């Protein structure tokens, strides 16, 4: 297998705040290969966005990256690797930002400049990142708008963001992110602000574009249904830690971590209207009061007292790329090797 496009290892991010150092991400590791869609799932406050932004060094000035953290980006032009976290000069970062990596956000209205036309914004980044002339850039941008399914593209090109509907804005955002042919697209809750019918259209479009452009996508969402329909692999985050990773089928069909199981049980399902919804007990702790030991032990129904609240569980492999960090799972695995851990869903 070829080298992964992006490799994140032991990513640990703290923020300096008035209340002291707050840990946002703690020891997250994952790889992303070309053309792969990795879903990053978790509640708000779990560190998904901070993780994604660190790939482009977009976190605020009070961010402290732990010295052992490493993010490497395969550099196809020069054949080596780019050590992202070591970049300090603006012009080095430009290779990544909008070049190798593009990002689309949850609220497209807030991501477009309100007083500049959609077209001018698309052209501007092409002039920055490519050798196109202004004229070529305009023609190419209009083609991209057409490609993402925007009708009357030349007309839309000359309009402002507020003149477009929510779904159209998100399409324009995707078109803009793809004009520079990024290797990695970071999509931070791209469909959360959209209606279900429009969400379905945008997800379809994104699947098509992966097939056509072959880029990798880091797809951040809190919606496991969206993940099931788009991603190849999933990483479940809780309080800054990746507690379970695996293929979509592994994680959704046979979740191993109690948190993943909890998330799935809390989800209202259309195929079973009579079942009651089981919330994950308790509230997500404040990042200022990070629990000792396993971060989930304060809400965990399978807690092993004296162990989970003291030691940090290591990531254990369940085979075939399915990893989980939980003492209860590794204990039951030793007890009965034949049984598959976790419940199997339909």
């Amino acid at each position, binding site marked *: 297998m070829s080298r992964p496009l992006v490799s994140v290892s032991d990513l640990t991010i703290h923020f300096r705040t008035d209340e002291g150092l707050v840990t946002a991400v703690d020891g997250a590791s994952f790889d992303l290969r070309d053309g792969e869609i990795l879903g990053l799932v978790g509640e708000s406050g779990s560190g998904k966005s901070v993780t994604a932004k660190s790939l482009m060094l977009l976190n605020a000035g009070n961010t402290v990256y732990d010295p052992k953290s490493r993010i490497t980006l395969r550099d196809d032009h020069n054949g080596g690797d780019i050590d992202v976290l070591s970049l300090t000069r603006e012009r080095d970062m430009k290779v990544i930002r909008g070049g190798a990596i593009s990002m689309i956000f949850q609220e497209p209205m807030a991501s477009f400049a309100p007083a500049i036309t959609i077209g001018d914004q698309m052209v501007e980044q092409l002039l920055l990142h490519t050798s196109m002339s202004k004229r070529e850039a305009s023609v190419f941008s209009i083609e991209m708008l057409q490609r993402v399914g925007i009708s009357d593209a030349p007309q839309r090109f000359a309009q402002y963001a507020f003149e477009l509907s929510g779904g159209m804005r998100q399409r324009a955002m995707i078109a803009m992110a793809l004009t520079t042919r990024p290797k990695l697209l970071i999509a931070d809750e791209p469909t959360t602000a959209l209606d*279900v019918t429009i969400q379905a259209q945008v*997800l379809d479009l994104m699947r098509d574009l992966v097939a056509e452009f072959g880029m990798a996508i880091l797809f951040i969402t809190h919606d496991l*249904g969206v993940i099931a329909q788009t991603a190849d692999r999933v990483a479940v985050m809780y309080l800054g830690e990746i507690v379970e990773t695996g293929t979509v089928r592994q994680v959704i069909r046979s979740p191993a971590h109690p948190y993943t199981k909890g998330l799935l049980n809390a989800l209202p399902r259309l195929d079973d209207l009579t079942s009651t919804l089981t919330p994950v007990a308790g*509230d997500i702790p404040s990042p200022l009061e990070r629990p000792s030991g396993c971060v989930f032990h304060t809400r965990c129904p399978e807690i092993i007292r004296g162990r989970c609240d003291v030691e940090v569980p290591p990531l254990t492999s369940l085979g075939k790329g399915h990893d989980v960090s939980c003492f209860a799972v590794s204990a039951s695995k030793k007890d009965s090797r034949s049984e598959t851990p976790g419940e199997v869903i339909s």
Partner: protein
Amino acid sequence: MTDKPLITIRDLSVHFPIGGGLFGNKAVVRAVNKVSLDIPAGTFFGLVGESGSGNTTLVRAILKAVPITGGHVEYNDDGVHYDLSPLSAKDLKEYRKRCQLIFQDPYAALSPRMTVRDIIAEPLEVMKLTSSRAETDERVREIAAKCRLNLEHLRRYPHAFSGGQRQRISIARALVCNPRFLVADECVAALDVSIQADILNLLKAFQDELGLTFLFISHDLSVVAHTCDKVAVMYLGQIVEIAATKTLFRTPRHPYTKALLSAIPLLDPDAEHTSIKLEGEIPSPSNPPSGCKFHTRCAFARDKCRVDEPSLIGKGDNHFVACHFADELMGEAGRAGTA
């Protein structure tokens, strides 16, 4: 329906003027257009639709928070009767004691300068429902306990709470004046799934315990499917389908309902994409299509749909649908129907 419904809506219209020419040539947005609806007492009634469908305007009209252009809204509860169109200011105050609203965003709905106790006590004080501070405090403590808020939380400010806890504070505030009818406008949309289930269970418990009637607006059909007893689907200011929840999700009849159902991303990664994909977006309510408002996006639209506006017709079993070809389309069952 044998009992008299708690809320009876007949031909309700809410139009907003836009622009407005100098010479009377005024354009209007028909946010809600001739809606008729009954909300039976004690039900959890769901209202579903894309943004721009007019569902928020409809509930605001029910609470008389927007001017009603035409039609009637009536409230009937144990001999208490209000007709909203000619409601006096005094009656409106009385009416609002009975009808309360839970908002979507628990971060914006609570004043950051008030303690939780003051937030929950405010309706009691404004409506002069209690006569002494001690009585107010007791009532606040009682309702806080019901919403599973710790008593020590009452002294704190909202910023100290998570989204789920804040929504519980919002619910406590809405319940403190003993309302009979609660409107929840997207009240779980801003919450994480793990918390969402907790809030939904809490609301359902209040429905059973206190016999409350709920009007629940949501764009999330799976949430509606799990909580509501009855559902109405809105599109461009009109109701296109009403049925009991199970009926609606098993045998949706309107093409719009079917499309909405099939747009929900299923948890099964191998689920086939058989969904009826809706093309385009919801048209502007200031310039709605002729005939059936849905014909511009409907895969089954025929000539008749472009001209004739279908009315809501009963199909038995309290299932109402506004589609000329609802019977013919029965064969094309929605995905939830086949599951």
